[in-house]
């Protein structure tokens, strides 16, 4: 599996006076099994880019290749692409519509043209993947708690068996408990099922703990692309575009300024503790 985004531009409302250049010459290479965090403030183009990856939006110029095939080729079936690249929107629980969780999750596989039996198998598997409590399989999705609804909605996309899973702020509005549970689950999809994961987020703290690679978007452009360690080294640059590094980054920076000889690339609390003990212990 690979996705290549090649010089993609996207302009909203191109023929009106209020046109917005939402993506500017975006190039990106996503390979199999990666866990990528996409970060940027509201309006930076990250959600727009995600909708390009599964063909919901079509680039104004440039190309996107999925497994080497041009998705804008006139013979290419976009519907198939949408099944291979699962997209979980923000507040996905707002799209639940069936009378029970199980039927709702079957919706995707049924659209794929699977038999009822196959769809049910997929639904079971998907619900297990997100650790959804069994006693609620046949409950109305509207009676679940916020965290459970969110999980059911994610299972609805997983049931289509995608190769790539894109999640647009999957933890928005959840409390810390729900947040960690969902993120742990997503990480497991990558490690145990080798799914390629793209996580769109506002939160540097969340992303720092889980992803292997960070893409920073700003004003429709790829501002930076690298490992969390590399990216969080640029505290000043991140602040300039309205983002912030995890708090630990600021502590490390201020300590260095105060004369502590801390090594570069500290991004977690335990790393910071180790380094400080090295000096003071």
């Amino acid at each position, binding site marked *: 599996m690979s996705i290549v985004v090649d010089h993609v531009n996207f302009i909203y409302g191109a023929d009106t006076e209020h046109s917005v250049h939402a993506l500017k010459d975006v190039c990106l290479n996503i390979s199999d099994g990666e866990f990528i965090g996409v970060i940027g403030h509201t309006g930076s183009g990250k959600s727009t880019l995600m909708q390009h990856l599964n063909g919901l939006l079509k680039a104004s110029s440039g190309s996107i290749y999925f497994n080497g095939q041009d998705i804008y080729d006139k013979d290419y079936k976009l519907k198939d692409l949408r099944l291979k690249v699962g997209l979980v929107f923000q507040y996905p629980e707002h799209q639940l519509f069936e009378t029970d969780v199980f039927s709702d999750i079957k919706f995707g596989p049924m659209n794929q043209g699977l038999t009822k039996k196959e769809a049910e198998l997929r639904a079971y598997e998907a619900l297990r993947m997100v650790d959804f409590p069994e006693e609620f399989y046949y409950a109305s999705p509207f009676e679940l708690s916020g965290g459970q609804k969110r999980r059911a909605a994610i299972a609805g996309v997983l049931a289509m068996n995608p190769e790539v899973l894109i999640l647009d702020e999957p933890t928005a509005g959840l*409390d810390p408990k729900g947040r960690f549970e969902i993120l742990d689950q997503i990480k497991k999809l990558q490690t145990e099922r080798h799914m390629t994961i793209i996580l769109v987020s506002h939160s540097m703290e969340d992303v720092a703990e889980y992803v292997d690679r960070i893409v920073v978007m700003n004003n429709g452009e790829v501002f930076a692309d690298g490992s969390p360690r590399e990216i969080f080294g640029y505290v000043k640059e991140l602040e300039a575009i*309205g983002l912030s590094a995890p708090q630990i980054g600021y*502590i490390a920076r201020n300590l260095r300024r105060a004369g*502590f000889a801390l090594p570069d690339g500290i991004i977690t*609390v335990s790393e910071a*503790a180790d380094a400080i*003990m090295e000096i003071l212990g």
Partner: protein
Amino acid sequence: MDLIKARDVLFEYIRRDDEGNVEGITTALDHVSLDVKQGDFVCILGHNGSGKSTLAKHINALLYPEEGSIWVDGINTRDDEKILEVRRRAGMVFQNPDNQIIGQVVEEDVGFGPENLGVPTSEIWERVEESLKAVGMYEYREFSPNKLSGGQKQRVSIAGVLAMHPKCIVLDEPTAMLDPKGRKEVVRAVRGLNQVEGVTVILITHYMEETVHADKIFVMDKGKVVMQGPPKDIFSQVEALKELRLDVPQVTLLAYELKKRGLDLPDGILTVDEMVDELKKLKGI
């Protein structure tokens, strides 16, 4: 003087099936008692379902206790005659920025509360102007709310409450749906209200870093107040907070970690600067 006084408040959500039989009872508030002093900045922490939002709605007389009582500025919220008095004194800002703006123009939304209170026209304009200025949204007064960012919408909502000249403002997770930038804007506006305008603030949140500057924190779990005290006391109990699955800020975690490894740090380090200063002391610089 205590502006808000709650004594032994009990509130239950009763679920019924189609025939009206009781299916289950959730105790949202389990004999809660608390006091909030006039002019204080108070935070209520807790994860979803801990009862913090239910408590907030009690302060505004949107819900009434089944047992126990709440007094706002000396008025019992159960007193039907004075319900508007309670609501005017304790304004409320909700979580979803889209679902609480009524006006189609920013200034008209801010004027909505005073209109309901029967404030004369010329005074409404004065109040709208001062409220919008207090949250830094005056330049946007003629905008449509649909053109604003989440943080800006929440500031408009805050101005809408402020224009009613409340004694206290209750914010029910006003930042939960915002991006980091919006969150900062709102928290700054709320602190300004408290410090400059002297309005009592009750901020309900699950982001611990927003509570650093509070005068007092209440931590709720399963309908009960399980911890209360100034931030320094609350933040030093890292184990207990983790137990409650709250999001402990990284500074606090680091302090906890270092102390565990034998460094002699004081309790309750809340900010990056405090942390750096303490470590500098230890290093002897």
